[in-house]
């Protein structure tokens, strides 16, 4: 087959990701649980890749968890997102970089709704102007921040200090990739590889030397389920879904899980701890747990940044074994430090801690 023909066949699975000049919107969940990931995304983009990323502190939640928790109406979230577009317009940016997968799904839903129901765009313009006096341009592109790291994955690989390779054996690390449902299950054309062949994390893992594990429940939801986690009485739903994934991936002995959604990263880490507490089951090689990392943390490790400044110690499943395999020297005693550099008491009961 000629390459041109192949490109045409796969055209609908390609995504155009801008090269530079991003308006960055943070994530409620990522900034709460993985603040280091957001900071290092910006650092990598700006310092390692020389890109222009603009952030306006007046940007707020998109209200997405409230929207999918069904307490925020669609009209309201459209106007809140339109306000973010207004801030981008005022600053002269046309490309939105979105840290959260829930937000990314919402931005996709809103842009598609405005295309299919143009009257909703007009109503949103009126609502926003009436509420805030602001006006906005619809952005030219929206990218999830994992799209952007994906775009520059080979450049990151060229600058790599470490790879996803076991330095003792020379073999690739075995990696589970988990894509947040709202990245491309709802609006496939907004995701790299669409819903059927999401390539956004696979591309990073392959460029950085790892092997992908293909396991039966690879595309199953992590189980967030919004109200199914937010309300205490429902949390069994969330635990149940993650457990199904762990049981399915376990026979393949993964070295790590990488997720592009902050919620998924958090749940797959937290539920491993919960399952250990409830049932005494610890997954992973030698029952050390399966570390669950954000793609920003992995990119940071590849580039040689300090794991404890990336925030790896704030996961229940610690990554000490993984770091050793990659050849990264990091003193576990340096994990928990106060602002003045003094050591804080270490938490008990971490997995592989």
């Amino acid at each position, binding site marked *: 087959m000629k390459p041109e023909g192949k490109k045409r066949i796969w055209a609908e699975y390609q995504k155009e990701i801008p090269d530079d000049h991003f308006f960055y919107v*943070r994530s*409620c*969940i990522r*900034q*709460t649980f993985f603040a280091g990931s*957001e*900071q290092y995304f910006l650092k990598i983009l700006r310092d390692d890749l020389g890109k222009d990323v603009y952030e306006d502190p007046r940007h*707020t939640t998109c*209200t997405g*968890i409230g929207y*999918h*928790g*069904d*307490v*925020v*109406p*669609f*009209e*309201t979230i*459209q*106007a809140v997102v339109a*306000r973010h577009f207004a801030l981008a317009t005022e600053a002269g940016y046309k490309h939105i970089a979105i840290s959260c997968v829930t937000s990314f799904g919402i931005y996709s839903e809103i842009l598609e*709704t405005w295309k*299919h*129901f143009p009257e909703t765009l007009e109503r949103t313009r009126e*609502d*926003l102007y009436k*509420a*805030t006096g602001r006006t906005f341009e619809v952005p030219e592109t929206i990218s999830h921040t994992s799209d952007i790291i994906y775009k520059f994955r080979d450049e990151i690989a060229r600058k790599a200090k470490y790879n996803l390779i076991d330095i003792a054996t020379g073999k690739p690390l075995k990696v589970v990739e988990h894509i947040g*449902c*709202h990245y491309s*299950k709802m609006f496939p054309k907004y995701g790299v590889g669409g819903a059927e062949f999401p390539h956004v994390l696979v591309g990073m893992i392959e460029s950085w030397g790892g092997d992908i594990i293909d396991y039966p429940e690879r*595309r199953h*939801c992590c*189980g*967030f*389920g919004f109200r*199914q986690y*937010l309300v*205490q*009485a*429902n949390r*069994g*739903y969330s*635990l*149940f*879904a993650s*457990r199904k994934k762990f*049981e399915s991936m376990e026979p393949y002995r993964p070295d790590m899980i990488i997720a592009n959604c902050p919620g998924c990263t958090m749940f797959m880490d*937290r539920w491993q701890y919960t399952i250990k507490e409830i049932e005494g089951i610890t997954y992973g090689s030698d029952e050390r747990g399966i570390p669950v990392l954000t793609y920003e943390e992995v990119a940071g490790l590849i580039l040689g940044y300090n794991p*404890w*400044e990336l*925030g790896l110690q*704030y*996961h*229940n499943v610690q990554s000490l074994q993984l770091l050793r395999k990659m050849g990264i020297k990091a003193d576990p005693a340096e994990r928990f*430090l106060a*602002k003045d550099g003094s050591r*804080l008491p270490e*938490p008990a009961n971490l997995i592989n801690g």
Partner: protein
Amino acid sequence: MEDLYSRLMQDVRFEEGLKACMNCGICTGICPAAEYYNYDPRRVVDLVQTRNNDVIRELLKSETIWYCGQCMSCKTRCPRGNTPGMVIMALRKLSQELGYFTASEKGRQQFAIKRTVGDNVLKHGYCVVSYDVDPKTHPEQGPAWEHYYNHMEDSLARLGGELNGKEGPTRRIADEVLDELKSIFRVTGGQELYDAIEEASEKKAEEMGMEFKKEGRDFEYFRHVVSSDNGSHQAEPEDVRRDVYETGR
């Protein structure tokens, strides 16, 4: 009598989410909620497309519409391009607007979501804030979070952030920005929905003889809706366990 189907059709998510459903059931096959709860999205869509007012009213008062986790896996798989998850979103919105949500145990939980995530949005500018994820009510967050929570300023500083700072992660959202959010909620019906949830919940608390407060979370009705489980929601738990738990361990 009000035509509930017409009310649903006013929601673009409903119009987009339901063309003629042929009842193939692939949505139920892929659905994580159907695996855990006594839930069948195929059946929900089929009931809605009867356009029967009584049937739809019954659904709006039921436990059923609150089982979906909105992963939207159904959208990817439906051969007709329908999205049962979006039909559910439209049903839930209408259930709350009409005050029907308090008729079911799972529906009453909307009050807890309003008082947590809903209030966070207008009070802090975020759906989730670190100082609100208390390890006492979130034991599943484990030791790493407990440590982070107890040493938040130190931990955040290590990661390049500042709690309630001017910029960066977990920055404080300025009052004038919160005013813009509140104004958006007033103009677009967000505040109206919050008020509808509050009003119906207060009425239900009174009916159930439970203490209710206009603010906060430390009172009987809130504690009840967050934790109550009458045990009727899960379908054949033994079958489910057999599928997932018996994997050779």
